[in-house]
């Protein structure tokens, strides 16, 4: 019997799933749709496995695929008139964020997350890839198929918005209200 196709390293692929899920949730703002996106990404990765250059960063390659799948799905959803908006305000409201109760900064974290949810999805993606995934800017440019300059301007806008928001956020934790 032939062995499984050696093109994609299975353990690394499995190891990448939690990060893919997290990024998918950042993009879609919703857990179920995020897992569908991951599923589709993995299927696409196997289809395109011959395009992956062994030894290069598998995570970045998977994120690139996910970004493309997401962009295509979003285009379809837009054609579908009344689909759920993926941008700005309402996405953040739908987030289910597992903030551990022991965290003393819980309210502050909810606040940050709510503001992240309010960012346009393009800025949100760059911010999370840079700050949370700690990808190099050039890598982010590849994943999102945009110039590095655009990565920088989106990152800058995202950070300045969060900064302004945190300076104004002395009001009670509105993030705990259910907006939808």
């Amino acid at each position, binding site marked *: 019997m032939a062995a499984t196709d050696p093109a994609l390293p299975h353990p690394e692929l499995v190891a990448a799933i939690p990060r893919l899920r997290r990024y998918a949730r950042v993009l879609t703002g919703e857990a179920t749709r995020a897992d569908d996106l991951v599923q589709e990404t993995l299927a696409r990765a196997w289809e395109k496995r011959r395009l992956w250059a062994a030894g290069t960063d598998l995570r970045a390659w998977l994120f690139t695929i996910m970004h493309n799948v997401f962009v295509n799905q979003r285009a379809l959803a837009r054609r579908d008139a009344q689909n759920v908006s993926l941008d700005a305000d309402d996405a953040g409201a739908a987030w289910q964020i*597992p903030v551990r109760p022991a965290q003393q900064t819980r309210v502050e974290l909810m606040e940050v997350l709510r503001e992240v949810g309010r960012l346009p999805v393009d800025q949100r993606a760059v911010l999370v890839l840079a700050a949370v995934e700690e990808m190099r800017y050039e890598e982010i440019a590849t994943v999102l198929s945009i110039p590095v300059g655009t990565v920088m301007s989106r990152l800058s806008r995202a950070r300045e918005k969060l900064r302004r928001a945190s300076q104004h956020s002395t009001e009670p934790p509105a993030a705990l209200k259910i907006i939808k």
Partner: protein
Amino acid sequence: MSPLPLSDTDVHAYVDGQLAPARAAEVDDAVAHDPALAARVADFRHQNAALHEAFDAWLEEPVPPDLVAAAHAPADAGRWRRFAPHFAAAATLVLGVALGWFARETLLERDGTPTTFARQAALTHVLYASDANRPVEIWAAEEQRLVRWLSRRLGLSVHAPDLNTFGYALVGGRLVAGNQKPAALFVYENGDKQRLSLMVRKRPGESETAFRYAVEDGVGVYYWVDENCAYALSGQIDRAQMLAIGRLVYGQLAAADAASAQGK
């Protein structure tokens, strides 16, 4: 102090640790002399820390079996597509001629890997579930007798899951040949006369637990191995529905196991 003016990019790269050491030292210096810049850098660092703290919690969530299954190579699809015509011919033989049965036995006993289990399930499905008149030995009308008999022959307690929520009703079941041990086969049918089968056999020693999906000659097989048994759900229905039904079966069997464990 800084030989080059600080750009916005420098500030972000500094915060994200993406500056070359020499340039980072220059920014250090600028930060030390510029309180506004220092505040901005501190805020951005604080944001990074908060984002990590919040989003890292998501990494600890258990990964759903579907996604683990999706990380597996998709059932050697390429290989089977290449051999599909030969395989279809072989399957027809198996169906038509008694000799085919022995060929199948040889094929199946080659090894005990999960791939073989999927193939075995697909063949068994094609062989029995496609038989319009006699897919089973004991019909669903005698479900209790069926389950008792199969449990005794397999040496473990088996259950026929209820798939009515998906429109599939139990047709009945039969005993089929497994690798070394017998296996139980439950056959289901929906209003369009489409059939699904669930094969159950005692776990033959491997510790595989992941959910896997394979397509064997047009038959989709969703299979997994738990503590005691290996299960394979086979049918010619679309993958998404198969996975949904598989999840339901898994849930029901787990609940039944828990109930019988409590009863003991």
